[in-house]
Each structure stands twice: as structure tokens, then as C-alpha cells.
């Protein structure tokens, strides 16, 4: 294995780590969703890169070409992209509702508001 040959995979893994980092380390909910999106797109690259054949062409049959890149990952990733945007839409709708209920979308403030609410309820029960 050569380093040059695996460069694509290394960049993909770097993007994956970056997406994971944004997802875990940042408290703002919208930024977390953006990090999730970066994570997802790096996984798409991880699937498509092994399907490529140098010297091949796009997988559309034509008489002039004989070598094609593998169409199977393309199909799976097409589905994955559309499902990804569907989850993004749903996640953003949730964030909008959270903002309206709690007044903020920072994770720390949400956690504090929830624990305060729980403490108030247990105090009221006693």
C-alpha cells in the first residue's frame, strides 16, 4: 500500500473526525446539525472512493467506453444523501420548536433549564 494511494481515505477520515468533533464538542444545536452533515458527507466519500477506477468513466453505458466505475456505491449514496437531508429537515424543525419553548438553543442552557424544572417539580411534590 502506498501513502499516495490511500490519500483519499486519509482526507475522508480527517473530515469524519472533524464532523465528529463538531458534533460532540460544540453546544449550539444548529452547529451540531452542521457537524452531523459533515460527518455524513465524509461517509459518502468513503463509499464512493473505492468504486472509482482510474481510466474508467461514469457508469453510463456507451459504445465508446469499456471500463466503467462501479455503479453500486453510487446507488447507495444517492439514497443516503436524500435520507440525510430528510433528517436535517426534521432536526431543524425540532430545533425551532426547542427555541420557542426554552428560548435558547445552547446545550448548557437547555440542560440547566431542565434540571431546574425537575428540581422544582420534585419540590412541589413534597
Amino acid at each position, binding site marked *: 500500500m502506498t501513502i499516495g494511494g490511500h490519500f483519499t481515505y486519509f482526507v475522508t477520515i480527517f473530515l469524519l473526525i472533524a464532523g465528529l468533533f463538531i458534533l460532540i464538542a460544540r453546544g449550539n444545536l444548529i452547529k451540531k446539525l452542521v457537524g452531523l452533515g459533515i460527518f455524513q458527507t465524509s461517509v459518502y466519500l468513503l463509499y464512493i472512493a473505492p468504486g472509482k477506477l482510474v481510466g474508467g468513466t461514469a457508469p*453510463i453505458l456507451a459504445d465508446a467506453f469499456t471500463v466503467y466505475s462501479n455503479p453500486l456505491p453510487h446507488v447507495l449514496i444517492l439514497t443516503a444523501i*436524500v435520507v440525510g437531508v*430528510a433528517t436535517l*429537515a426534521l432536526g*431543524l*424543525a425540532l430545533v*425551532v420548536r426547542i427555541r420557542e419553548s426554552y428560548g435558547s438553543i445552547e446545550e448548557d442552557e437547555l440542560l440547566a433549564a431542565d434540571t431546574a424544572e425537575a428540581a422544582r417539580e420534585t419540590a412541589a411534590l413534597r
Partner: protein
Amino acid sequence: MKNDLILRVIVKLFVPFILLFALYVQFHGDYGPGGGFQAGVILAAAVILYALIVGLDEARVFVPDWIVESMMALGVLLYAGVGVAGLVLGGNYLDYFVLAHEPVDGQHRGIFWVEMGVAVTVSGVMLKVFYMFAERGQDAEDDA
């Protein structure tokens, strides 16, 4: 943005071409890159562009809520319907070979209707989600 003349003129020039491109991508999905998903998203993008520049209410006159909501469901029903048609005509669920006299023609027909169903649902959902977000923004401005 309603009063910016250049944007309005450009949008009125561009939107027909974008819609035409969406139809091209849909129907040429067999012969070149494209297909249902891309066509649906481009169609939704054309209407979203119109709504962004000219105004949400004007866009709602052209593509009212009931059309968008029915589009969301009709696409999935169309897809499932193609499957049931396969069952009714004697094959398996979503079997395309029985849809026409020649098996290969059946494939063409099946793929055509299936991609149509996908495009309708995808464009309906994208547009509806945009309408929901924009409507919420309008309500927030009205309340404030």
C-alpha cells in the same frame, strides 16, 4: 427584496429555464445523469427561488398548500401503485416484466412511472418544508 427590480426581472427570466431543466433531468434520467431525486429537488429549488425573491404569498398563489400536500403523498402512492400493478398483472410485487407485452418495454414503463413518483414526492416534501419554515418566520414577524 420585493422592491429590487433587477432581482425580480432575473427571477422571472430564470424560473422557466430552471423548471425546464428539472423536466429534462427527470426524463433523461435513463440516458444521462439524473433521475427522480435530482429533478424533484431542482423543481422545488425553482419555486423556492421564486418565493424568496418575489414573496411567499405570491408563490403560494401559484403552488398552493393543498397541491404541495397532495404531491407529498401521491408520489409514494404512485410508487406503491406500480408495485401493486405488478401484482395484479400476474408477477411479483414491483415486477416490471409483466407490465407490457415485451419484458424490456415493461422495464421502461416501470422505471418511468417509478421515477415520476419519486420526483413528485421529493419536490412536494422539500417545498412543504420550506413553506413551513417560512410561514413560521412570517408568524414570528407578525407577532413581534
